[in-house]
């Protein structure tokens, strides 16, 4: 098979910890340098927290796994400082075609949404995603990334976590205040602690084939077949990745023999039937997978071990919610962990990681299960409805939104979180407490810029200008961990914090701004409170609430 990518080989470097006695202690150790572990290291580094990141291998993902990264993930990557590179390398498609048997049912064009720095999604092989993050980690002296270092023998004590690291140079012990576990769906650490996951197995198998097209001219469009004529009664997805690599995701059914179905001759014959005899290609990666939708009941074990990504929650691949959901979980956790470590927030704040991300995990599970049920109808009558939806969609646009071949991951709104301060003033639900901030084009010092570049890592108080606010801001006290962002002040007066201008009025409508409107925004760019008037006491109370100071202690976590 051909290969468009050569995995980097990262060296094993002997750590001074290997010779330490007693065992070296670190505030945070992360297990697994995949999308979740790398995100956690970068997020914590940006907030000044040193981490040790352990990975048993010496390279990034083998073969292409996750390939679709949604806007919210890219915004988070932009905060980490590697978003631009991903977008530059990634490909995006606009034309999508849906087929039912031998008929093209309809074609759609995803017009880009104006007013966001990041596109709705990109397709990018997971190995590039990881490689760019690994390279970004090198910019931080306080990320200690250790390759060929396998963690095991985890012991949890009330005041610390101990573990053993196995390396080519022998074993050594380590301890930490908090252990972040991101060692994948099969999570050896989760298994070793005897922690269960609940959920369901889907009785279906899929074949992934990544192929390299000889010609550069194959149209960049997504094609999805229901009941494909070249693969009867099964669905097939074709879409593009960078390097002229195309992903084919072919449903095989539960009874298929995975060994036999992934024989190159058999796969190649199927792909020829799909693309036409004259399209030349070479396979780069073939694998058969089944999937589970399941999650841990509690992502936190005995207050000190925090599970992330696939180790904590797994979904079907439909809708690209695995890696995208994982990165959102990580960013939810890291700002909280930082503030618990610094003593700014009580340990109970960490409990809300489980609470808020359970909400996200459940939403992802629900969406991907619904897609699975549309692609593989569970019974006869579901099949009848599915097929009629597809047939009607050819001539009747109303049926098209019912077609579900995957719903792209959208950031979830943390409704009902105890960290939110519910609206007391007059606002529409859009951008309510719990929502992730929508990006907007702004001007900073007269130069084009983006709103989200000014949010994150710290709390932000965003104040929309008025005369009363100008006076209030003049005597606004400096609050540690809170930065000020001012918008729409007409005056040339001196104001504290960063000043941006909403010249294109995107913010005015999205955030329902008028003079006096204030938003308090968490370090993970979620709104936690908003008001129509600036009031220092309300801001302090809302910030204390967002830091979990009004939560009851987690004490009894088992």
């Amino acid at each position, binding site marked *: 098979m051909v290969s468009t990518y050569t995995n980097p080989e990262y060296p094993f470097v002997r750590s001074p910890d290997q010779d330490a006695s007693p065992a070296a202690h670190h505030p945070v150790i992360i297990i697994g340098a995949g999308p979740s572990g790398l995100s956690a290291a970068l997020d914590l580094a940006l907030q000044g927290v040193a981490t040790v990141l352990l990975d048993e291998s010496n390279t990034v993902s083998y073969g292409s796994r996750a390939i679709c990264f949604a806007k919210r993930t890219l915004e988070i990557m932009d905060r980490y400082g590697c978003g631009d590179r991903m977008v530059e390398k990634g490909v995006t498609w606009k034309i999508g075609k849906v087929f039912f048997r031998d008929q093209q049912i309809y074609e759609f064009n995803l017009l880009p949404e104006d007013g966001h720095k990041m596109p709705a999604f990109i397709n990018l092989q997971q190995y590039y995603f990881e490689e760019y993050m690994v390279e970004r980690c090198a910019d931080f002296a306080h990320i200690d990334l250790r390759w060929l270092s396998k963690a095991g023998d985890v012991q949890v004590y009330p005041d610390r976590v101990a573990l053993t690291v196995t390396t080519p140079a022998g074993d050594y012990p380590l301890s930490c205040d908090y252990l972040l576990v991101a060692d994948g769906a099969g999570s050896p650490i989760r298994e070793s602690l005897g922690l269960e996951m609940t959920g369901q197995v889907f009785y279906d198998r899929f074949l992934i084939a990544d192929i390299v097209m000889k010609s550069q001219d194959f149209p960049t469009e997504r094609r999805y077949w229901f009941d494909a004529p070249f693969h009867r009664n099964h669905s097939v997805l074709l879409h593009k990745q960078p390097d002229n690599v195309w992903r084919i995701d072919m449903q095989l059914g539960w009874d298929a023999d995975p060994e036999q179905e992934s024989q190159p001759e058999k796969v190649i014959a199927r792909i020829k039937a799909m693309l036409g005899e004259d399209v030349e290609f070479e396979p780069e990666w073939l694998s058969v997978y089944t999937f589970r939708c399941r999650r841990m009941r509690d992502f936190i074990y005995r207050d000190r071990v925090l599970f992330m990504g696939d180790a904590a929650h797994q979904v079907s691949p439909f809708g690209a919610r695995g890696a995208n959901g994982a990165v959102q979980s990580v960013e939810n956790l890291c700002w909280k962990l930082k503030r618990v470590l610094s003593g700014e927030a009580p340990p109970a704040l960490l409990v809300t990681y489980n609470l808020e991300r359970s909400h996200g995990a459940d939403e992802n599970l629900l969406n991907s299960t619904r897609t699975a049920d549309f692609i593989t109808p569970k019974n006869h009558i579901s099949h009848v*409805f599915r097929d*009629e939806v597809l*047939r009607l969609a050819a001539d009747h646009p109303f049926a098209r939104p019912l077609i579900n071949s995957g719903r792209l991951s959208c950031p979830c709104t943390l409704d009902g979180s105890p960290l939110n301060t519910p609206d007391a003033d007059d606002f529409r639900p859009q951008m309510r407490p719990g929502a992730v901030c929508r990006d907007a084009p702004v001007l900073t010092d007269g130069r084009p810029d983006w709103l989200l570049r000014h949010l994150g890592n710290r709390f932000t108080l965003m104040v929309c200008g008025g005369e009363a606010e100008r006076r209030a801001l003049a005597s606004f006290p400096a609050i540690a961990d809170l930065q000020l962002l001012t918008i729409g002040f007409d005056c040339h007066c001196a104001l504290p914090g960063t000043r941006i201008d909403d010249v294109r009025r995107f913010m005015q409508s999205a955030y329902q701004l008028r003079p006096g409107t204030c938003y308090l925004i968490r370090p993970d760019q979620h709104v936690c409170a908003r008001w129509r008037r600036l009031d220092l006491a309300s801001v302090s109370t809302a910030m204390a609430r967002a830091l979990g100071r009004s939560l009851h202690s987690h004490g009894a976590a088992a």
Partner: protein
Amino acid sequence: MNPKTLNTEPNFASPDDFYAALNDLFAGANDEEVERISARLILLLANHIGDLVVLTEAMAIAGSIKKAGDDPASS
């Protein structure tokens, strides 16, 4: 079962014409066609109504013939 939003009061301008048309629709259809026609009709009308509250109330009345125990959610 008391629907709050779904109109279950008479609403047909000419009930007999509707009923005849409904029967004509299925006349001569085999079992497979009956299923397909029914499914299409439900989908078209459901979209026209659009309001999930109305649709859920209608589905609750339609589904009430299911024997208790078949569906724990319907009891």
